[in-house]
């Protein structure tokens, strides 16, 4: 019940006219960048990081959270009407949603995804409000060794377990480690990885890395693929009102999706891919209209995954706020916004910054309401955004990329690094390396190093702290299983598959 009084206090923070304005601005901007292909919440928040020098922490986090939630809503519009999922989390929405749009039921698909996002986003935010204090109580008992082991587990889950290849995921993560270590080591004052260049002593700003990988890299990639053929926008047909039958088919899928998405998002693994794919599989299995899947488009196949996506986005905020552990690129950039205010997310945040945390959570409820209004009646406006031609869109993105990067210190060196990272981002996109682990790695590796050093100082240089503490040992074991498990499983599967094939060959 303590949570309710905190929440009430949070609403009193969020309901001030200024903060409501930030929330409206964030959700509108978030929806727009979610709709536009090539722009995502991580890139947008990175470009807006300088705002942290100008306004109070409450205001900028309400803005960032609005962008974060809004991008989820906007992304589904693009998936349904254009069949180009802006993010991996909306791939599944595109599967059935685009088919529905093609068979003239685009309105219902957009409605079920917006209302489903609202239901799941609200449930997920409630989950944050009630789960976070529990995690905080638990996390207060963590020592540096536990934190370090938890970060190791997060490193493995975000890079090796999710995604198509653990080797490529880990490679991205290690590239992030290298970038994160560039600059002066804060504890000893030694310059590291600066290649003797004084411009690198301050390190590489996360803005440069995020903009380079996401904006410049994406622009190169789109330029390189002009021969790939264009996606056409399916004109919006059908009313936005769902029939009674469509409601009946949707609401259970929303709830199931939310129940699936939130816990998986809240785990230190994070990621919205797994819950959306799971939800799709479950809905397909439970549906009474199996024949519609993959043919004319089944509404459950949009409702469930879209709810799972939004609930897991809310879930990601739990480890971010309570443990300071970001599990997505967007969360990692939000963490660097906390750092720019000199605030350390973690269990103490809920005591020292109660205004900020509860105001943020309350504003998420408000954001959900604003978003469902922005996305249903005003859908025609967002569809028009899809018609911005690619040349001007990408050229415009790069103008903003230049502003964001050059504005940090007016140094052309930053632009050189930006373009080099853009080239790297292109290669990563082209050769299927995930980019999020780079951002997570560069933010989290220095924090992991700090915790490691603390643990070693407390233990007087004795390495055994990491496996003598039961919790730390458990986390490291889980990380090890996450790294090795899938390979053993794949090996066993391959053996089983190969078994019967050999028999006819031998005979």
């Amino acid at each position, binding site marked *: 019940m303590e949570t309710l009084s905190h929440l009430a206090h949070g609403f009193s923070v969020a309901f001030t006219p200024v903060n409501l304005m930030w929330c409206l601005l964030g959700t509108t901007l978030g929806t727009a960048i979610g709709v536009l292909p090539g722009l995502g919440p991580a890139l947008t928040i990175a470009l807006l990081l300088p705002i942290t020098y100008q306004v109070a922490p409450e205001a900028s986090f309400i803005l960032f959270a609005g962008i974060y939630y809004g991008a989820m809503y906007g992304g589904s519009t693009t998936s349904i009407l254009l069949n180009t999922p802006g993010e991996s989390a909306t791939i599944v929405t595109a599967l059935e949603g685009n088919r529905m749009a093609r068979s003239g039921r685009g309105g219902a698909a957009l409605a079920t995804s917006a209302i489903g996002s609202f239901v799941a986003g609200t449930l997920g935010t409630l989950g944050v409000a009630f789960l976070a204090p529990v995690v905080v109580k638990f996390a207060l008992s963590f020592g540096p060794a536990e934190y370090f082991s938890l970060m190791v587990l997060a490193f493995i889950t975000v890079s090796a377990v999710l995604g198509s290849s653990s080797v490529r995921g880990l490679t991205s993560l290690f590239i992030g480690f290298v970038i994160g270590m560039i600059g002066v080591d804060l504890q000893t004052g*030694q310059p*590291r990885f600066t290649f003797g260049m004084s411009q690198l002593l301050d390190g590489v700003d996360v803005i440069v890395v995020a903009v380079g990988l996401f904006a410049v890299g994406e622009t190169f990639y789109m*330029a390189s693929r002009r021969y790939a053929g264009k996606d056409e926008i399916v004109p919006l047909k059908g009313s936005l009102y769902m029939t009674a039958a469509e409601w009946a088919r949707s609401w259970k899928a929303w709830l199931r999706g939310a129940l699936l998405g939130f816990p998986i998002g809240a785990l230190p693994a994070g990621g919205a891919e797994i819950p959306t794919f799971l939800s799709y599989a479950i809905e397909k299995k439970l549906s009474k209209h199996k024949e519609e899947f993959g043919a004319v488009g089944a509404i459950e196949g949009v409702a469930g995954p879209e709810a799972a996506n939004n609930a897991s986005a809310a879930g990601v905020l739990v480890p971010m706020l309570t443990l300071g552990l970001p599990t997505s690129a967007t969360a990692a950039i939000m963490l660097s916004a906390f750092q720019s205010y000199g605030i350390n997310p973690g269990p103490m945040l809920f005591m020292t910054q109660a205004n900020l945390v509860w105001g943020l959570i309350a504003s998420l409820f408000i954001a959900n309401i604003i978003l469902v209004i922005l996305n249903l009646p005003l859908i025609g406006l967002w569809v028009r955004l899809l018609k911005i031609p690619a040349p*001007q869109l990408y050229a415009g993105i790069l*103008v903003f990329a230049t502003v964001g990067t050059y504005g940090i210190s007016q140094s052309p060196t930053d632009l050189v690094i930006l373009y080099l990272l853009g080239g790297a981002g292109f290669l990563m996109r082209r050769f299927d390396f995930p980019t999020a682990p780079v951002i997570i790695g560069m933010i989290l590796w220095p924090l992991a190093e700090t915790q490691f050093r603390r643990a070693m100082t407390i233990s007087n240089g004795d390495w055994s702290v990491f496996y003598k503490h039961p919790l730390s040992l458990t986390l490291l074991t889980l990380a090890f299983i996450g790294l090795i498990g899938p390979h053993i499983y794949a090996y066993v599967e391959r053996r089983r598959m190969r078994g019967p094939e050999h028999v006819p060959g031998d005979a």
Partner: protein
Amino acid sequence: MSTSDQQAAPPRLAVPELLIGIGLFACAGAVAWQTLSIPVSPLYSKVGPTVFPYITMIGMTILSLLLIVAALRGGWQPEEEKETPTDWKAMGIVAVGLVANLVLIQPLGFTAASVIMFVLICYGFGSRHPLRDVLLGLILALAAYFGFARALGVNIGAGFIENQLNTGLDSIIRVLRG
């Protein structure tokens, strides 16, 4: 069906992937070089500044070797990517646009450099209306400049265009304030 075909064919060396692997191996080498050149002060013998760089160095080396092995076994590119020819010309023009921006931003200021970059990138993406693009680029660059520089208080390189407009704007504000 396709998988059995793939298994039947002997694994072929994938050149692009091999280059990526070798490039990353070279990066691992650069990491090693930088790690070994970090001076270690005996005062910090417990956990010095080199422990995490060493971990990174070892990890990078192992991963790049694994990628080289994967490339020797036929690579990992998705079929769809392999079949799409890369439009090098478009990419080249975009790159020229970026370099132009980099070179011109200090002498000409942000807005002028951005307009040139904008037009070149549009051209690279296939737009054939340079005049319209100049206009669009100018509007966008000015919006970005005034949105960031004046509203967010970020200082981005002012050139001829910005200075003229800034003086104009300041005098308008002065007049408005009486």
